């Protein structure tokens, strides 16, 4: 069901009067129901990968599986877990965390330590681990510790991540 705001109605009437081109926007929230903005923190110490992932997710349109709601992702990138922790009061809907966070910044805390600190502050915080670590012991340990999902950084990682966000958000 379409619903027009007063401004839309005014524009529509003016356009009818002047036989002008009707410049009303019919964004996807109208055709697909509600559109919600979700705040997503992305933590990765690889600057190129962080920029690319931020851009990729920002441009993505994700449909939440549970509610068929269109989601717009507002991405906040962080190069370290420590920076992410300082911003937890912004209440992100989900945090995407790299397991290894000290390749580039060698004195930074690793992703698993950051994950544990996040859980101490907010036990309900959803955290997805996105990592090149394929060691089964690490994956099992992370999942047992309460990680929402563990995604291995391979060629399908970003699509897998979008599927997880669609499922969990």
């Amino acid at each position: 069901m379409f619903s027009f705001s007063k401004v839309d109605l005014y524009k529509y009437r003016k356009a009818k009067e002047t036989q002008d081109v009707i410049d009303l926007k019919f964004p996807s929230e109208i055709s697909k129901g509600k559109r919600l903005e979700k705040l997503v923190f992305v933590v990765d110490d690889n600057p190129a990968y962080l920029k690319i992932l931020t851009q990729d997710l920002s441009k993505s349109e994700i449909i939440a599986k549970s509610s068929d709601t269109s989601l717009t992702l507002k991405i906040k990138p962080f190069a370290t877990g420590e920076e992410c922790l300082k911003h937890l009061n912004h209440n992100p809907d989900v945090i995407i965390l790299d397991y290894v966070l000290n390749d580039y910044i060698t004195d930074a805390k690793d992703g698993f330590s950051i994950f544990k600190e996040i859980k101490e502050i907010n036990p309900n915080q959803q955290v997805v681990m996105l990592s090149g670590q394929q060691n089964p012991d690490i994956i099992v340990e992370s999942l047992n510790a309460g990680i929402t999902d563990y995604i291995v950084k391979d060629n399908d990682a970003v699509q897998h991540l979008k599927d997880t966000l669609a499922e969990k958000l």
Partner: protein
Amino acid sequence: MAYQVFQPAQIVALFEGSPSGLKEVLDSILDSSKNSVPQMRVYYEAQDFDSLRHKAHYLKSTFNYVVPDEFVILLKKIHTDAENKTNLDKLERDLHQVETDTATLISEIESFIKQKAL
């Protein structure tokens, strides 16, 4: 090398309408290329396979959107061999290939930046 190293189509599409964003990410890739590949050589010479593995993985993530699959597979092979300490006799050859391809990648990205006046 039987393939073109720098393949910009995907990243250009991703940063469409944001030339400054594209420039930033290409600069990051250049920076990583210039630093990480020489470090891999140092780790190889020192037989520090754990650090070599980390660096191969790091470059794999960095290059994923801008190089052909063959290059990513080569980095993955180094990562696996360094992790399992297998095929060590082939590591030198593979590392040399990475050095050669990365030098080409750097040159092609720098030309692209100039050509597009980014």
